[in-house]
C-alpha cells in the first residue's frame, strides 16, 4: 500500500521515485566532457533524473496539499488574504508588460514607465504622501526602506544622535526588527486597556531619557493597530513626536481598513509602506513576489531610495538616478522593483475606481464587525465593549481555557472543519489571542458558515470535549503534529543524498 486513499495522494521526494537514477530523456552522447556540460556535477551531487510526466505529477500532487484563498475562507489577521481578481492576471500577461526587460532602452518601454508613474500617483493620492518609491520587494523590505529613509534624513540634518525608535507592544515583530537592523534602539510602549496607545504612555516614552525627546529618531505604529482598532489619539501623539523632531513611520499592513476613507498623511504619517500583495490584491507568497512600495512626505522624498519614475517636460518617462536626487540613500533593489505586481495593483485600482476602493474598505470593516458581533457572546472579545473594530476582529480563548481548550486547539479544530485558521497568539498584548480578518471579498454566506463553525467549536469546548480537541485534526493527510518535538529535534535535511 502506498498510502493513497480517496483522491488524497501521498507523494514522496523526487529522489525517492523508482528509476530516479535513470535519465528521463535520452540525450545524444556528449563528445567533450567538461564541467560546462554539467555531467560531472550530476554524477557527484545526485540530482534525480525523471521524465516530464513524473515531474509534472509530482508538483501537481503536492499542489493539492496547499490551501489558498482560491480554495476557501482564509481569515488570517493582519494579512489581508483577499481574492486576487483574474483581470489583474490577464493584464499582467499582456506582451507589452510581460515580455519586456529592465535593461531595454527606456524609449521602447514608455507604456510600462507610464504605468509605474500612474501607480505612484494613485498611491500618493490615497496616502496623501506624494513621494513614492516602488522598488521595495515586500512589506518588511518597505519597512527597511522607510526606516533607512528616516535614518538618512537625520544624518543629513546633523541629527545622528537620534538613536531611539518608539513602538507599541502590539506592533508587528518586523517593526522592532527593522529598527534594530537600521542601528536604532527600540523603546516599547505598553498598550492601554482600550487596546490603543495613550498620549500619557507615549509622552513617558518620548521624554524618558531627554526632556525634549532630542534622542528620538521616530516611531513605528500600525494604524489601525493589530488589535483591529483605530488609534484614536494618533493626532496628538504625532504632533508631540513632530515637535520633538522625530518622524512617524506607519506600518501599512492594515491599510485595507482606510483606503479612500483616511489619508495617513492627515494623521501625521511621514513615511509608510503599502503591501500591494495585501491591500491591492496582488498575489501573496507562492502566487508571486510581494511588493512593498513606500510613500513619504515631500521632505523625506529627498532621502528615499532611487529610482522612482519621473515625467519629463516633453511627456516622456524615465527612471531617475542618483544624479537626479543626490540626497537619496541609494539603491535597495535591482532596477525598479516587482513590475508585474505594479501592473496587477494598478489594474485593481483602476477597475475599482476611487469610489470602489472606498467601498472596499467599508465592506472590509463591515465584515469584520459582523464576525465580532456574531461571536462576542461565544468568545471573549476584549475590546468589543468599546465600539466597532476596524477590518479585523480580536477574540481570545479566555472562556474556552476554563474547559481545557486553548487557542491552538481551536485553530486545529478549524483545520479539521476545512478552514485555514486565523492568526493565533498575536498580537501579544493579551494571552491566547485570535485575530480574524475576513476581508471584503467574502460573501455573507461564506462568513455565516465560518461563524457557525466557530460557534460549534465554542459549544463543543463548553460541553467538555477537550480530549477530542487535543487530537484535532483527524481528517487531514497528517494528523496532530508534535510541535514541541519538531522544534526541539528538528530534522533539517532529507535522510541522505547519494
Amino acid at each position, binding site marked *: 500500500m502506498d498510502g493513497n486513499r480517496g483522491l488524497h495522494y501521498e507523494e514522496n521526494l523526487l529522489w525517492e521515485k523508482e528509476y530516479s537514477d535513470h535519465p528521463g530523456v535520452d540525450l545524444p552522447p556528449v563528445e567533450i566532457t567538461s564541467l560546462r556540460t554539467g555531467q560531472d556535477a550530476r554524477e557527484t551531487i545526485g540530482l534525480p533524473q525523471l521524465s516530464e510526466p513524473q515531474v509534472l505529477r509530482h508538483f501537481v500532487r503536492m499542489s493539492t496539499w496547499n490551501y489558498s484563498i482560491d480554495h476557501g475562507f482564509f481569515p488570517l489577521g493582519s494579512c489581508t488574504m483577499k481574492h486576487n481578481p483574474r483581470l489583474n492576471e490577464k493584464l499582467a500577461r499582456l506582451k507589452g508588460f510581460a515580455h519586456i526587460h529592465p535593461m531595454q532602452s527606456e524609449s521602447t518601454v514608455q507604456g510600462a514607465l507610464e504605468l509605474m508613474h500612474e501607480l505612484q500617483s494613485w498611491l500618493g493620492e490615497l496616502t496623501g504622501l506624494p513621494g513614492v518609491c516602488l522598488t521595495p520587494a515586500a512589506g518588511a523590505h518597505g519597512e527597511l526602506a522607510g526606516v533607512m529613509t528616516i535614518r538618512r534624513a537625520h544624518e543629513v540634518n546633523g541629527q545622528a544622535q537620534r538613536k531611539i525608535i518608539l513602538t507599541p507592544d502590539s506592533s508587528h515583530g518586523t517593526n522592532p526588527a527593522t529598527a534594530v537592523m537600521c542601528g536604532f534602539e527600540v523603546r516599547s510602549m505598553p498598550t492601554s486597556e482600550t487596546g490603543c496607545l495613550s498620549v500619557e504612555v507615549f509622552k513617558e516614552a518620548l521624554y524618558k531619557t531627554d526632556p525634549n525627546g532630542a534622542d528620538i529618531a521616530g516611531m513605528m505604529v500600525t494604524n489601525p493597530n493589530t488589535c483591529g482598532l483605530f488609534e484614536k489619539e494618533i493626532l496628538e501623539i504625532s504632533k508631540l513626536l513632530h515637535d520633538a523632531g522625530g518622524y512617524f513611520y506607519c506600518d501599512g499592513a492594515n491599510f485595507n481598513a482606510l483606503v479612500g476613507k483616511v489619508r495617513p498623511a492627515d494623521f501625521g504619517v511621514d513615511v509608510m509602506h503599502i503591501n500591494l500583495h495585501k491591500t491591492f490584491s496582488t498575489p501573496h507568497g507562492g502566487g508571486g513576489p510581494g511588493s512593498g512600495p513606500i510613500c513619504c512626505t515631500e521632505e523625506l522624498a529627498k532621502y528615499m531610495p532611487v529610482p522612482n519614475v519621473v515625467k519629463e517636460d516633453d511627456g516622456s518617462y524615465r527612471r531617475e538616478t542618483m544624479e537626479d536626487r543626490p540626497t537619496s540613500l541609494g539603491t535597495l533593489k535591482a532596477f525598479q522593483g516587482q513590475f508585474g505586481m505594479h501592473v496587477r495593483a494598478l489594474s485593481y485600482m483602476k477597475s475599482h475606481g476611487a469610489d470602489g476602493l472606498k467601498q472596499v474598505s467599508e465592506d472590509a470593516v463591515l465584515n469584520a464587525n459582523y464576525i465580532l458581533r456574531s461571536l462576542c457572546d461565544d468568545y471573549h472579545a476584549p475590546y468589543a465593549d468599546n465600539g466597532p473594530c476596524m477590518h479585523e476582529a480580536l477574540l481570545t480563548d479566555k472562556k474556552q481555557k476554563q474547559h481545557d481548550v486553548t487557542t491552538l486547539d481551536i485553530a486545529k479544530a478549524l483545520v479539521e472543519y476545512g478552514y485555514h485558521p486565523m492568526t493565533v497568539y498575536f498580537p*501579544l498584548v493579551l494571552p491566547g489571542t485570535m485575530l480574524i480578518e475576513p476581508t471584503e471579498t467574502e460573501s455573507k454566506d461564506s462568513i455565516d458558515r465560518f461563524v457557525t463553525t466557530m460557534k460549534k467549536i465554542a459549544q463543543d469546548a463548553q460541553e467538555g470535549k477537550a480530549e477530542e480537541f487535543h487530537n484535532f485534526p483527524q481528517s487531514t493527510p497528517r494528523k496532530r503534529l508534535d*510541535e*514541541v518535538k519538531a*522544534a526541539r529535534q528538528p530534522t533539517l535535511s532529507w535522510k541522505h543524498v547519494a
Partner: protein
Amino acid sequence: MAELKYTKDHECIFVDGDIAYVGISKHAQDALGDLVYVELPEVGKAVEKGGDVAVVESVKTAAEVYSPVDGEVVEINEAMADDYELIAKPVNEDGWIVKVKVSDAAALGDLMDQAAYDAYLAEID
C-alpha cells in the same frame, strides 16, 4: 521549604546570600507551554534590574527573562539546554536559568513573596 520571590514579569527568584537564582514562575510556564529553546547569557555579563538576562522560547512565543536586580551573571544552567523540562523544577534546585551576583541588595526588597504574587495573579487574571 525555601522562600521564593517573584517579579511582576513572572520571574521566580531564590536568594542565597548575595546570589539570586533566576527562573520563571509556574504561571509563566503554563502561559508559555513546553519550552523549545533557552538562550543563556555569557557568564560575567553585567545585567541591570529590568534588563534582559535570558530568552525562553516555546512553540507559541519567545519571551525575555528580566534580571530582578543589578549585578553580574556568575553561573548559567547549561543542563537546561539539553533538558528543557528542568524549568519545571524548583528554582532553588535545578529550575534556575541563571545565577546573578547581586550588587544592590536593596532592589530585592521590591520582589513579591508567594502570598503577594498569588494576590497579584488573581488581580491580573
